[in-house]
């Protein structure tokens, strides 16, 4: 019998499964699809903005206590968040995709504003349209995009790659007071395709010949500036691609700017997680949509998933709901305005009338109620009913399905996923095998 069945294969589910497996539990993951990791920039945004504030958070360790009391981060506390981040860094480093605080990268030594030490400091990196993005951890290739670095930049686009506009990015950066210009290099010698997705290009740049050609072209257009490229620098041989480029372009710093989906940095992260899970003997079954469950009143006994024929039953001692919020599919809103949690029909903190889902202004600074709704949990990440008691004794929830957070506005998506996923896994592990009594 499984100790833990994780439902959902986004960052939350995969990382929680990994943490639980490392704690010695028998774990399996089922998911409807591939998870939202593929849409995201591949950075770990922990807390970029406090509710209602326009100014980005400089240090999340200081900002967390200012969050509303019900916020999942307040629930966990700064130490638990930090532990989860360290565990996450250990995982990705082991998978060959190291993440560091963007404010502490080795390249940053000596640059004004860089402290060199890793605390809760956020860095401002560059969004796909050249806007600043507050980020906590970044993969090596994105760290040098740090906007605290005042050296001039050239943003290099590729012909045949739609949806990446170097001039627009550069203009937006200049408007914020940075020195940047745009340039484009031709790809016609490398591919005949005119509609390359970021992923196709990343696969192309896994090839040494393409790497060399790109390095030449980049050296041609960069006049000593740091170089920003779309995040397509290799998929499976990313590290090698970066090393190759670094060598060929000399000491010049270069960095990746995330693109529209499919996001290659997100895919790299997803791959690192899945490979680590396979290494732990954890199976991830995709294409399985949870569609029912059985309970004895206090405990969930099984979850059913939809198949080509009869539903398939999954029994386990514990269940972790990591299905995502309204965007990821864990919460569904129908045409009448009812909002429900899709697997266990858990109580939601949600406006149940469609007229109250959204505020009239698209960019309202308070955000939209429907994106803030979710499942309320206790400090052990167990979903609570209206009276504040756990709904089921062996059910846990983590990630974007949680209430009292608005990850889009807070820029806290990955932080919530990692911190709550880890906390839930740790709580399950304590439940399955309680620590030995103090006297032995």
């Amino acid at each position: 019998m499984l100790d833990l069945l994780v439902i959902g294969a986004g960052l939350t589910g995969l990382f929680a499964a990994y943490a639980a497996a490392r704690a010695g539990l028998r774990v399996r993951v089922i998911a409807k699809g591939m998870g939202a990791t593929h849409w995201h920039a591949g950075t770990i945004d922990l807390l970029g903005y406090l509710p209602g504030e326009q100014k980005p958070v400089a240090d999340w360790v200081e900002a967390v206590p200012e969050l509303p009391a019900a916020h999942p981060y307040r629930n966990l506390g700064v130490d638990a968040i930090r532990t989860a981040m360290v565990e996450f860094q250990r995982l990705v480093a082991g998978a060959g995709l190291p993440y560091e605080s963007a404010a502490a990268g080795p390249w940053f030594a000596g640059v004004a504003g860089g402290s060199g030490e890793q605390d809760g400091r956020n860095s401002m990196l560059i969004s796909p349209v050249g806007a600043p993005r507050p980020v906590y951890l970044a993969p090596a290739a994105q760290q040098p995009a740090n906007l605290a670095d005042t050296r001039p930049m050239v943003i290099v686009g590729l012909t045949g790659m739609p949806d990446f506009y170097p001039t627009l990015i550069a203009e937006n950066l200049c408007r914020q007071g940075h020195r940047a210009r745009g340039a484009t290099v031709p790809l016609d010698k490398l591919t005949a395709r005119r509609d390359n997705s970021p992923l196709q290009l990343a696969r192309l740049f896994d090839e040494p010949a393409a790497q060399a050609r790109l390095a030449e072209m980049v050296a041609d257009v960069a006049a000593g500036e740091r170089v920003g490229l779309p995040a397509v620098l290799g998929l499976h041989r990313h590290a090698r691609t970066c090393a190759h480029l670094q060598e060929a372009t000399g000491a010049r710093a270069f960095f990746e700017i995330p693109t529209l989906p499919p996001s290659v940095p997100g895919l790299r992260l997803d791959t690192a997680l899945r490979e680590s899970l396979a290494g732990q003997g954890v199976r991830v079954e995709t294409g399985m949509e949870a569609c029912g469950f059985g309970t004895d009143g206090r405990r969930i006994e099984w979850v059913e998933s939809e198949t080509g024929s009869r539903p398939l039953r999954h029994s386990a001692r514990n269940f972790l709901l990591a299905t995502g919020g309204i965007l990821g599919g864990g919460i569904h809103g129908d045409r009448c305005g009812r909002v429900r949690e899709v697997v266990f029909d858990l109580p939601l903190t949600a406006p149940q009338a469609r007229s109250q889902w959204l505020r009239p202004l698209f960019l309202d600074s308070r955000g939209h109620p429907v994106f803030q709704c979710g499942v309320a949990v206790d400090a052990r990440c167990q979903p609570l009913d209206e009276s504040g008691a756990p709904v089921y004794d062996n059910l846990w929830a983590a990630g974007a399905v949680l209430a009292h957070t608005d990850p889009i506005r807070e820029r806290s998506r990955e932080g919530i996923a990692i911190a709550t996923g880890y906390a839930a896994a740790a709580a399950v592990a304590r439940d399955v095998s309680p620590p030995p009594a103090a006297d032995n």
Partner: protein
Amino acid sequence: MHTVSLHSAGMSLDACIKCNICTSYCPVSQVTERFPGPKYAAPQSERFREIGQPRSPDASVDYCSGCRVCNEVCPTGVRIAEINARARAQMVAEQGLSLRNRLLGRNELLGKAGSLAPRLANFLLHNRLARRLAAALFGVAEQAPLPRWHTEKFTRWLARTDMHRLRSDRKVVYFHGCATQHYEPFVGMATVLVLEHLGYEVIVPRQNCCGLPLLSNGEFGAAERYHRRNVERLTTYIEVGYPILGSSTSCTLTLKEEAPELLDLEGDAGVRALKLATWDIFEWLRERQEQGDLPTDLHRLNDEGKPFTLPYHAPCQLRAHRIGKPALDILAQIPELELRESHARCCGIAGTYGYKVEKYQIAMDVGAELFGFVAAQYAGLEASSSFACTACDSETCRWQLEHGTGLPSRHPIEILAAAYGLYDLQARRPRGGN
């Protein structure tokens, strides 16, 4: 005539959020520029396909192999592969069908014809000249791994060994499919031996092709006739509660879902009963295992005390069942078996896709990921004189695996039968009196 209609697959396209995850994973669009990928071919182009419209707006959909990787990864449940299959059917309805596709769609007919004189058929089909001719005249790829007819059909073996077959109150129905009947009767033998070992009597009623090759070549009318005939023949058994078990993942998928859904037969009571009664053999064995009914007298597969390394590939056809990888759950019980799970997306062949001249190379390029995985499992192992093979639940995928890796490939049921001591894995025949 089937045209694009209002159906569950088509309705699902509204759920598309344009995330491009499907395009990231589509193995075909990764290796060829002729296919732009699932998002463009299905949810995007579908909006421009209309009932009665003279021409399909996007002929590239013919390059979709139907592997369904896109369905599996789509986070919002868009039935991309089904939308593509319908678009292809519409193209067939408009432009007619090539003789080659008509032939490839009639696997069962070919199988029967060859079985009349298997040696002659093998000679005719497998010599160089014939293959070259077939390529030039019909567009059947010269190097593609065509199967060989077996000298004894599966049902003939059943009849010949009738006095050895188990009679029991506990009964199951076996749907063997064309490949087992004509090319790989030993897969059927292994299935029967395992089921009898569990104490079940195996009923093999008359049956015909599930119709999948017709569906994937867009011949929906003929496919519907095939499917209705199977429903007719199996209904009596379903009514008394016997499960319908299959060892061919594509046949069982067709009975469960492809035929009802693509042919708009979801409302038909008989079709629905068959859908709910059909099991993949390992899906059913896993259920027995969970009930504690699976015999545990499993022996190791090697004599020398060295572990037996077995790369296992769950074919896309099986993944499309959405039942996980039940063979892994069962085979894991075999002592000293080193199971290695492949995460490759597709072997490339995708039914009849890789047999077509213009698609052969695409299929091989798609398969490279899997062939590489298999090779990596033996890297560092000293070459062993003992038998080595891969395992895969689907017949055409096994043929492609053998073609791409040079190693023999087995159905997991053959592995299990061997571990029960019932079957010779290398020679592919029952042990003992059968």
